[in-house]
């Protein structure tokens, strides 16, 4: 009966036919999920004159796509833009989200906080729409500024609520003890609340970072100047719409070979940061975050 250590005693031993079917289905799912990514990653290392095939392994290996990209030019610059937007944006978003979330825990003690909480919650069910948002960004003079990729998406009500829920669960006795010791609200927030909330700060920071890195439509809407474009926009023009790099930017003439392996290399470069943070993301998001949000 104890052939499988995971199988409780009351579960019948696996039926070989069912197990085989499940194995095939799962194998197919994994193939469909992994093959496209593996295909693009591996073939980005194909030499420009190698013919593209359906095979995963290129006929001729080379780093030429990457060295062409990192000679300079729009892809390299857009990567730097995206990295800076992601770093600055995530830091600002975390700061605004954490301070707001902490202040919103004071619905009982501080007058005006409860209406503020409702104002934040309400933004989850409506959106003014593309055009009104565009007009506001324009009115603030943010068009064609890097800030247009950060300030209009500075905080999400969802993340504020998740963080607030986390702060609410912290043991109250700690705050009381600090207050008796003469600590003000600010030092309680900085010295007690934030250090106890590293996990939730990490998850929400990662979520913000991913959304800044992936930000596409706002950049398309607000940035006309292609020299300011982040990587997602360059990826769209160069890979999806098939424009050549030189037509996108006349000021800098350089020849990026328009081969498929270079296109794949751009895709890979845009994907790497996500792949790097993914293990951390996965570790956190299944715990707490989502269940907390559902109850919120």
């Amino acid at each position, binding site marked *: 009966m104890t052939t499988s250590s*995971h199988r*409780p005693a009351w*579960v*019948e031993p696996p039926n070989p036919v069912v197990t085989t079917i*499940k194995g095939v289905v*799962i194998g197919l*799912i994994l193939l469909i*999920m992994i093959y*496209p*990514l593996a295909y*693009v990653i591996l*073939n980005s290392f194909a030499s420009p004159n190698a013919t*593209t*095939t*359906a095979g995963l392994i290129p006929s001729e290996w080379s780093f030429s796509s990457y060295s062409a990209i990192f000679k300079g030019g729009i892809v390299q610059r857009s990567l730097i833009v995206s990295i800076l937007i992601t770093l600055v944006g995530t830091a600002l978003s975390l700061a605004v989200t954490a*301070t*707001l*979330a902490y*202040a919103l825990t*004071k619905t009982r003690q*501080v*007058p005006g906080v409860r209406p*503020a909480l409702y*104002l*934040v*919650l309400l*933004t989850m*069910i409506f959106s*003014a*729409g*593309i*055009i*009104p*948002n565009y*007009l*506001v960004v324009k009115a603030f003079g943010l068009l064609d500024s890097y800030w247009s990729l950060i*300030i*209009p*998406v500075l*905080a999400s009500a969802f993340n504020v609520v998740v963080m607030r829920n986390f702060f609410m669960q912290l043991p109250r006795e700690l705050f009381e003890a600090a207050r008796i010791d003469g600590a*003000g*609200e*600010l030092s309680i*927030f900085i010295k007690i609340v934030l250090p106890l909330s590293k996990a939730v700060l990490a998850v929400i920071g990662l979520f913000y970072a991913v959304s800044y890195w*992936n930000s*596409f*439509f706002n950049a398309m*809407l607000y940035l006309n100047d292609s020299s300011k474009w982040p990587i*997602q926009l360059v990826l*769209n023009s160069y890979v*999806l719409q098939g424009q050549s790099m030189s037509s996108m930017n006349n000021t800098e003439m350089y020849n990026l070979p328009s081969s*498929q392996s270079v296109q794949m290399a751009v*895709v890979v470069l*845009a994907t790497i940061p*996500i*792949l790097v943070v993914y293990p951390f993301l996965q570790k956190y*998001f*299944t715990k707490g975050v*989502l269940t907390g949000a*559902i109850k919120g």
Partner: protein
Amino acid sequence: MDRETVVTHPDATTLIRPNPQSSPPSGRIRRLAHALRQHKVIYLLLLPGMLYFLAFHYLPLAGVSIAFMDYSPFLGLSGSTWSGLDNFAKLFDDPEFVGTVRNTLIISFLQIAFAFPAPILLALLLNSLLSERVKRMVQAVVYLPHFLSWVIVIAVWQQVLGGAGALADLFQRLGLDGVNVMANAETFKILLTSQVIWKDVGWGTIIFFAAIASIPTQLYESAAVDGAGSLRRTWHITLPGILPVIVLLLILRLGNVLSVGFEQILLQQPSVGGEAAQVLDTFVYFRGVLGGDWGIGAAAGLLKGAIGTLLIVAANRIARRTGSEGLF
């Protein structure tokens, strides 16, 4: 009690003094000033976030008014003339708008029919696996695409399924005529649904796993003792156990029926054309922002937003009536 805290607060005493108001303020203002002094830090922490939400979520609501205007960007909001419901009348006479609504609804229903049940089936399949290690590995793989941007997902799909991609190569080797599924208007809506499934099927399972985990194991145990096989246990215990979550999510999805993947469609519209790929959000963008028909674009956006909000509120109410907690 309150007075004590004010006095012991170091900043409060200094703040009270430089406030020599000649006329005695009304009680309400005094209470407000008192609260501001007493909770200065909390209000300061509240300020940046609230300013953001007011400026970028509430202030844009004023811009909704251009749906009722003959708006011109050069004249601005104050210079443009009101036109009543003209924009809406034009909208309903516009054959392109009618096609847009039709596309939006068809895509939405395809997604409800296929992309919605997919994570439920996957969660049930993974839950039936005995090996915890295999389960974790599959989860690690299927969650990933959720975090990739639509630009990346579509670029990857194009490399595999596009005209110069892996599939085309395979077809050529088999001596068949390849079809570029990435640029085929007729099958575009199926393509969209497949992409949504590929990207989010794993992510969607998380909520169902949480629901499955909350079903007491004793139920399975006693059912097994009573002779129910694994299929019958799934049907009679797991499915009823997660039904409230399914119903809640389905109702909320129905509330979002006018929202279909905006970026996903915007990115692929150039390759299949507007007739197959114009949905409400892309219509607003192309007509309003790019085409300069600001009033008509805003009118379409307002219709979508207002109906969407109403549907979500209604859906939530229905969800509550069915016994689940609802979202708000």
